[in-house]
Every structure is written in C-alpha cells, then in structure tokens.
C-alpha cells in the first residue's frame, strides 16, 4: 500500500502487524446506530492489511485475471471441450460476484448466491440489449461482462475503501 488508509474517523490506519484497532475508534458509528456494538470486529480495518491482508487480495485478483483468460480462450478459438466450462462458469458467476463482493456482506454463501444471480441477470440483460440494438455478438457481450467484472474487482483492490468490517453474525 503506497497511500496510508484511513479509519472511519479519518485517522490513519495502523501499519501492518500492529495491535488491533481499539473499539473506541468505531464507537462514533456505534453511537449513531449504524453498527451494533457486538457486530464490530475490534481488529484492523478491512483494507488489506493485517495477517490475512494478502489473502484478501487473492479473490479480486483472480476475478480480475479470469476475464482476459476467458477472452483469450475465445479469441484463440480453442475447442469447445476446453473453453465451454470456463466460459459458462465465468458468465454464471464472475461479474456478479465481483460486484457483490464490494458490498462486503458478512456471509460468503449469500455473497456467492447473489453474485451468481447478478451475473446471470447481467448476462441476460446484456444479451437482450444486443438484440434490440442489432449488435448481436457473443464476444461483444462477454467483453462487456469482462469490463464490468474487471472494474469491480479492480475497485476492490483499492485499499481503504471499506473501513468497518461487519462480523459474521447469526441471521
């Protein structure tokens, strides 16, 4: 991280390896009723720092790289047995997952489900728009989805955008 990330109240984020953030830092938010006290993790903000910071970069990075990989399979006209699985998986999961991950929902199952639904919905809308615009081209449709997914995954890689992490809680 080149730029130091900020905490909710504008203070700079502690460097990696430092002690967890005192809960006092997020107390103003608790007082405003935005976040219940028992759901706030008294740990480093979700900016990619901390012990598992590197791991947090992996999913958006994979989502980012998956797009060009899938496009390459199509442009190189690889046989169907090789590209059918990756292409279908990409259209059915990646764009939506990249977008829904930005919401930082507390449970991975809901993120995956809403991500899959959003992916299919975006693919459907893109395909139908191509029909109405008389621009039918599966490669164009997939490229549009790749752009959407890449922008979303890229945004997730920008540090310091989501300071307060909501802890996984019972629903």
């Amino acid at each position, binding site marked *: 991280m080149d730029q130091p990330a900020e905490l909710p109240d504008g203070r700079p984020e502690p460097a990696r390896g430092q002690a967890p953030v005192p809960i006092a830092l997020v107390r103003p938010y608790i007082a405003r009723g935005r976040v219940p006290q028992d759901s706030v993790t008294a740990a480093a903000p979700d900016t990619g720092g901390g012990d598992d910071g590197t791991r947090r970069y992996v999913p958006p990075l994979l989502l980012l790289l998956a797009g060009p990989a899938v496009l390459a399979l199509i442009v190189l006209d690889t046989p169907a047995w090789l590209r059918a699985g990756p292409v279908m998986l990409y259209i059915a999961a990646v764009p939506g997952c990249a*977008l829904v991950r930005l919401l930082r*929902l507390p449970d991975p199952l809901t993120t995956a*489900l809403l991500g899959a639904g959003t992916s299919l919905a975006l693919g*459907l*809308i893109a395909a139908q728009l191509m*029909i109405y615009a008389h621009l039918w081209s599966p490669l164009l449709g997939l490229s549009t989805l790749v752009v959407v997914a890449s922008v979303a995954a890229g945004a997730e890689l920008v540090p310091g955008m989501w300071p307060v992490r*909501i802890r996984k809680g019972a629903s």
Partner: protein
Amino acid sequence: MNGSGAATALAAQPRPGWQRAVLVTLRWSGVAAGAALGLTTLVRTDPDGIGSLGLVDVLPAGYYVALALLTVSFVAVVFVDPAGRPVVPALHVAVFAVLLHGAAAIVEPLPRFVPAWLHVGFTDYIARTGGTLPDLDARFSWPGFFALAAMVTRAAGLPDAMPLVSWTPVALNLLFAAAVYRLARAAGMESGAWLAVWLFLPANWVGQDYFSPQGLNYLFYLLILLPLLVWFRVSGLTRARRRVGRPVRRWPRRALRLIRLPAMPLLHEPEPLPARPAALAGLTAVVLVLFVASTASHQLTPTAIVVSVAALVAVRRSTLRSLPLLMVVVLAAYISYLTVTYWSGHLNDMFGSLGQLGRTVDKGVTERVQGDTGHLVVLQVRQGFALAVWALAAVGAWRRLRRGHGDLAFLVLAAAPFLLLFLQSYGGEVFLRIYTFALPFMVVFVAALLAPVWPARRTVVAAVLAVLLSAGFTGAFLLARYGNESFEQVRPADLRTVDWLYANATPGVTFVALTSNVPWRSRDIEQFRYTPLGEDLGPDTTGAIEAAMRSNPRGAYLILTEGQYVFGESFLGKPPGWGAQIEQQIVASGRFRPVYSADGDKIFVLAPDKPGGHRGSTG
C-alpha cells in the same frame, strides 16, 4: 450406517478422540456409499421398461437403498451435531439433488421433455440470427433467457444448447437449495434450515426447473426475496416506535387461546442484519437488476415477485416501501414498449383472468384431470403431495407461533402466491405456480415441525420422524415428477425420424403430427411450418390430416412416432391402440405414400391424386 439411536449416544460433549474418529468416518462413509450406490444403479438402469408409472417402473432396488442410506446418514448428521461443519450436510444435500433431479438424465439416453427441445430451437434461432420472432411465438417477446443461452453457447463454442438441457434441473436445484437454506437461516433456524433444504428437494416436483425461462426466474424470485428477508426487515425497535402514541392493538386473545397459541405469538421475530447504508443501497440495486432480468425473460414470474414484495410491505415487514411501486413501473414499461407484438393480439390472455376465480380454478383443476389410469394416479399423487405439504406447513407454523417464534414475513410469503388465483390463469397451471412460489416458505414451516427439538430428550423421536417424512416425500416425488416419463422422455427412434425429416425436407414445407409430443423445432424453427402448434392434439382423422397437409402448396410430411401415441393415450385420454388405428386408416386410405419407416415410426407424404395431378410433397 449412522443409526439415530447410536447417534444420540454420541451426542454428548466432549467426545473422546476415538468416538470423534468413528463419527467422522460414519458421516463421510454415509454420503460416499449413498452416492456410489445410487449413481452406479442409475447408470445400469434400462429405460426400455418405462411404463404408465414412469421412471418408478424401472428404478432398481439399489437406488432406493442408496436414498435410504443417504437420508439416515443426513438425519444423523443434522440431529446429532447441528453445530458441526456445514460441509458434511451440504455434501449430503448435493448428492441428494443429483440422485433425485438427475435420475432421468442418467437413465435416459436423450434429454427429456419436448418443451426443453423447443427452447433449444429458440436459442438456436437467436444464436444464428441475433433477432427474435415475436410473431411466431409469444415467448420471443420475453427473449432474455434465450438470448443469454445463445450468448453462452456461442461463446462456449457449442453447436447448440442441447448439452445444457439434461443437467439444468440439477444445477438449478442446487442453486435453489442454497437459496432456501439461506432463507431458512433468515427465519432463525439452525439445524432446521438443513432439514428444510432436504425436504425442499423432493417437494419441488413441479418440474419448472428444466431448460426454460421459468427455471431461471424461480432463482431470481428467491434471490430477490433473500435480501429483503435478511437486511430489509423492519426491526423490532422500529415496530415498537411506530406503536408509540397509538392505541394498543390487542391480539384476539380468546381466539389465540382457542388454538392454543400464546398471547404474543410473534414475540421473537428475527431482526435484520446490520449493514452500512452503502451496502443497503448496493443490495437494492442488486434486487432491481434481478427484477429487470426477470421482467425481460418471463411473462409470469414478475407478477408473483411484485405480489410477494407488496405483501411484505403491506404487513410492514420490509423497509423498502416503495419497491413494489418501482417494480410495477418497470413491469409496465417493459410490457408497454417491448411486447407490443404480443399484447396487441392477446389482451384477453393477459388480463382476462383478473378476478375470474371460478374459471381459473376450473382450468387449473378440472380440465387437467384426464388421461389413462397411470396418469390419473400421478395427478392424484401430485394433488395429495401438495395438500400434504400445505397441511404439514400449517402445523409447523403453529408450532413456531406457540413458542413465540412466529415470523409474519414468512407467513405472508407462504400465503401471498395464493393471490395469483385472482390475477392470472397461468394457462391452467395456476396451482402448480402457487405451489412452487409458496414452497420455499412452506418447507421452512414443515421443517419447523421437527427442528429445533423441544424438549431435547426427544431427539431420537424427531430424527426417526424426519427419516419417515423424508422417505414419504421422496417416494411421492418419484411418482409426481417422473410419473409421466412414458411420454416426457424422448425416444431415440423418434429423434432418428425427426432427423430424417430435417435432412430430407425442403424449407417451407409443413410437418404434421397427431400430437405435439415430437422432438422437433429444436433447429431451424423459422424454416418449416408445424401442425399442431400451441395445441396438444393435432388433426387425428384421415380427412383432417389430408386437409392440413394440402393447406401448404409447397408440400407436407406426416410424421407418426411412438411418443405421440403414448402421449395421446396417457395424457390426452385416447383409447388404447388409438395411434395404431389411425396409422392403419392412413395406409388403407391410399391417399398417403410412406417415405420412411424404422423402429415403428413412419413418415408419409401425400400420394398424387391422379397421374399428372397435384403432388402434395417434395418427398
């Protein structure tokens, strides 16, 4: 095998190391053995013996043993160690979904269900041309699903969408199951959530999960309601604030006492999960994107979504109070601008059912009850299964209310689909649709019959009842879902006949059949004419067939296949031997000339009237 008695004995915590090892082994071995046995028996099953009770006629004993093994193992896992790692029950659910919803795909040599083949044809047209044919079929006015499938198949390098057809039900049901699990968790259930999913899989016998717009739209329906129930509930605090200064609304205590409910049956309604405003805004956007996709891809599901969302708002269990209005605007805009070709000629179809409850019920119940004995048995099982689910759900809801764990949102969502009776006839399928849309919430209440276990000492009883309930649901599923397999399967001989037709017919000719149960229209749908179109029964007398064939001066082919005969007898209630008799009359009339005959299937063209006269086909 995981026995429930032994399982209870192992439930005490903490367990010694060797007990944990045994438990882990039993958990994994149960699901592994069930999967291995089930899949191997299905692969070896011969589909030739499929009769009037469908797939049940040919399923071997090993398949039932596998299902029993899996069920006992699942119930032991869920009831003994509900706080354990979710991967084990999830794996059980996945195997269960494959064994139930993938059975036909494994046993039968070709993808089942003729309407799915037609959807492949729609997809093929869009993939080839990038356009739609709203004048040919109403479904082209809502082409979203077919456009998506066309884009996917072309991008994936597949020749058509046929490779997707067989396993679509399994893929969709796995997604449905995950959504139902999350919904059940949103109702505050723990182990009961797994049981709800387990019961949902066999209870979802309706068959709207094939390669179709409605299958995908059912997923959209679940995923739109999911955020509303998890994040957009009205909190107890807000509800309490609203009551301040208003006269106290008392529950009708005497009525509650009469049905043995406490004074406050909704005391412990689940609270919304906390989220930042930006996340809530994002979730609202997700809901709207899903709804737009639903509006663009199916004629009927968006109405059900609007009804359910509006019902949540009406009972003040959703903070997105303007969402139903926004949805209505989106829906009206789409119908007004993008389905003109359809509604300009079908206004009565769209709005004719408004308020006509009696006609809708007649169409949904009376007119659908016909066919041979086996088919009637299947219909009775379906009706009994639906009524049983609703009755069990009512008792389960009562049990939750008794503990003060009632959830008005779930109660309303289980009931809201019944309002569709007043809105749309759904082409006579209204009860199937109501059952399907209410099912996710109904199964939560059915699971609430047994979980959580009150009091805890009754765990064994609850586990045994869960096994019995699951066995009953599974048995009913196999009849309700696959009972019509005698005509819903696609026979290889029928496909070979259709292949010959497409290989030899010149574009522009008419294909005539006795019934609609022919695996045609999966390719080149715009190049040929078809009779019957939109009806189950086609011309079935020699004179009517000849007239239909002569109506096209370019020529016509008559195709007679085994699948049509079985469909006529089993589904349409025609007498046994009906198809063979018509075939004999056609041959005896001398007005038709056979051009293809194999495996009992035949193709005819019109014979010339007289030497040098009109010839009916290019045969």
